[in-house]
């Protein structure tokens, strides 16, 4: 009857890597799936390539849009077409490792509470080899999500029942970072997880959407931040959100003023969370501490004020672990002075 899994992919002029990508799905060790490919109005050779796969594998289903309607619309359309118990996302330029479906389906079967599950990924493309290791448990993912997307979109498997029940469809008004917007909504309804295995090779384009459409992405991020912060019940300004966005994107400023604002902002979040109990405080504080530490490492501020900020803040400081806090701050600043060759 119905296949257990529906693999969902949208293609828009993706001829260059399409074959590799499609074959990585067709050659999976787990075989009980349908492969829904939405051709989002391509005008290169992609339609011909797809037609060939359609002929030689009955599991492939192709639907073509006449014009380019965008990723969100294509994915929503595909989700409504899908018959499987699980919906697996895939991108036309990525490569799934052979055991990906098997591992993810086994995990979802074993954890019926989990609605969305990603994996660790290895980056490919013209950049140096790198592995993105994401937190695996729901609370950790939730804490990280406050800052930035913590799931790689094409690595995700979702439970179809949860999508229908909580209306977890992509917002078609959003063209970029639509996945982050969706996770922002879904965090309140379903459990998240990441598998601690590399199951996907994710291609990074140096001229990709992430680079070209930063401003449009920021709009979406701001929406998600507002949604994620609303259960905390605290007041914040647009400037605070700008700052939060910078911290989330690792764009730390290097002056002491930036550091001061960051400290105040992170402390506000921590306090609001302790009051509302929305995320387990120790988990969120660990995440805030990590961000705070990075901001300090990046800072070019004069050592003395920097040292003061570190010592005065109740935020967790991760450098020089094992030392008392006062010492950590002083040692860290001394090291920094050495590295900029003041001595």
């Amino acid at each position: 009857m119905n296949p257990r899994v529906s693999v969902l992919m949208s293609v828009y002029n993706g001829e260059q890597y399409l074959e590799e990508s499609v074959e990585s799905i067709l050659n999976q060790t787990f075989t009980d799936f349908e492969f829904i490919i939405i051709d989002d109005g391509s005008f290169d050779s992609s339609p011909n390539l797809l037609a060939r796969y359609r002929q030689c594998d009955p599991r492939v289903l192709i639907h073509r849009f006449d014009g380019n309607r965008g990723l969100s619309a294509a994915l929503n359309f595909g989700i409504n077409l899908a018959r499987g118990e699980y919906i697996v996302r895939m991108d036309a330029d990525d490569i799934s490792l052979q055991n990906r479906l098997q591992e993810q389906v086994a995990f979802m079967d074993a954890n019926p509470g989990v609605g969305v599950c990603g994996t660790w990924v290895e980056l490919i493309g013209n950049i140096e080899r790198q592995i993105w290791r994401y937190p695996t448990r729901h609370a950790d993912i939730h804490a990280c999500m406050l800052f930035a997307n913590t799931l790689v979109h094409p690595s995700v498997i979702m439970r179809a029942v949860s999508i229908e029940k909580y209306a977890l469809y992509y917002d078609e008004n959003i063209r970029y970072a639509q996945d982050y917007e969706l996770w922002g909504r879904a965090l309140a309804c379903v459990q998240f997880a990441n598998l601690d295995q590399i199951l996907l090779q994710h291609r990074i384009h140096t001229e990709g959407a992430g680079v070209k459409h930063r401003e449009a992405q920021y709009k979406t991020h701001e929406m998600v931040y507002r949604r994620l912060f609303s259960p905390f019940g605290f007041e914040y300004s647009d400037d605070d959100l700008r700052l939060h966005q910078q911290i989330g994107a690792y764009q730390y400023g290097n002056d002491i003023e930036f550091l001061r604002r960051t400290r105040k902002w992170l402390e506000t979040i921590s306090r609001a969370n302790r009051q509302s109990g929305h995320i387990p405080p120790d988990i969120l504080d660990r995440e805030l501490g990590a961000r705070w530490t990075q901001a300090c490492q990046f800072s070019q501020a004069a050592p003395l004020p920097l040292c003061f900020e570190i010592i005065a803040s109740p935020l967790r400081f991760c450098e020089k672990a094992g030392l008392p806090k006062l010492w950590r701050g002083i040692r860290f600043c001394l090291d920094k002075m050495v590295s900029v060759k003041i001595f």
Partner: protein
Amino acid sequence: MSKIKISVVICTYNRAELLRGAIQSVLGQEYPVKDYELIIVDNNSTDFTHIVVEEFLSQYAHVRYILETNVGLSHARNRGWQEARGEYVGYLDDDAKASLGWLSAAEDVARNIHPEAFGGPFYAFYNSTKPVWFKDEYGSHVQGDVARPLLNHEYLDGGNMFIRRELLSCHGGFHIDLGMKGTKIAYGEETHFFKQLRADDKNSVLFYDPAIYIYHLVRKDKMNLWAVPKRFYFSGVYSARVNNLQKQNRAGLVFQILNISIRVFLFFFRGLVVRDKAKYPYFENYLYESLFFNFLELGSLFERFRISSEIE
């Protein structure tokens, strides 16, 4: 062949892509195949409905396809029980999905309580994004979480109801002037039937069991805030039509209409200024829950006014 206990009837009109989900939810039941049959009444659809059904016909012997050319949900539902062979006829909407234990729960009620009719709640499911203000309750219908006979003013929901077949045939089924016709909004055919049932035999039991639950699709257009008053209005109109009313004092009706209109007007402005943020997180919630609800009564009053004028 053993006796069929339940005949499930799905009436459908131009919803081929949704119908598959409804049929599969029935065929996937944890319930012995010999104890039920599935009848799909196609209300003269113009899309690919028959193709969807044929796929199942070839695989399952207990599925039947019937074409009803008289357009109208009441026609289709009547055809459904006429063709049925089970002791009870269970109606499921074409845009709904039965829960896994739907039929087993239904059989428990049929065997232990043996009511004239029974049914359960429905919960929302979606096939598109929903607006932030839209609460799941708006797309659900729950009459409490304990199994019980319904009180005199309560009725079962038409999308999830089981009725004893002999009662349907002795009352002649559903009133054909009520109920959806094609794309025209209309309600009340099942309420009308239940009223007849109760009028005929005061001891009739309409039994409600939350274990017999289904999921019902909330279409995107149903989540359009400005279409909500219209829907409430029409439910009001049909609730008035179902209540066989005598002539009423028209001046009194006009007074009530004015009263409600003014209340709606004033409450709108009060809501703009101050509202209970815990109860109505968004202004839309306020509109939906405390203003638009009045349109139900408005619809009913207008209709009564119309009926009273006609009688004269």
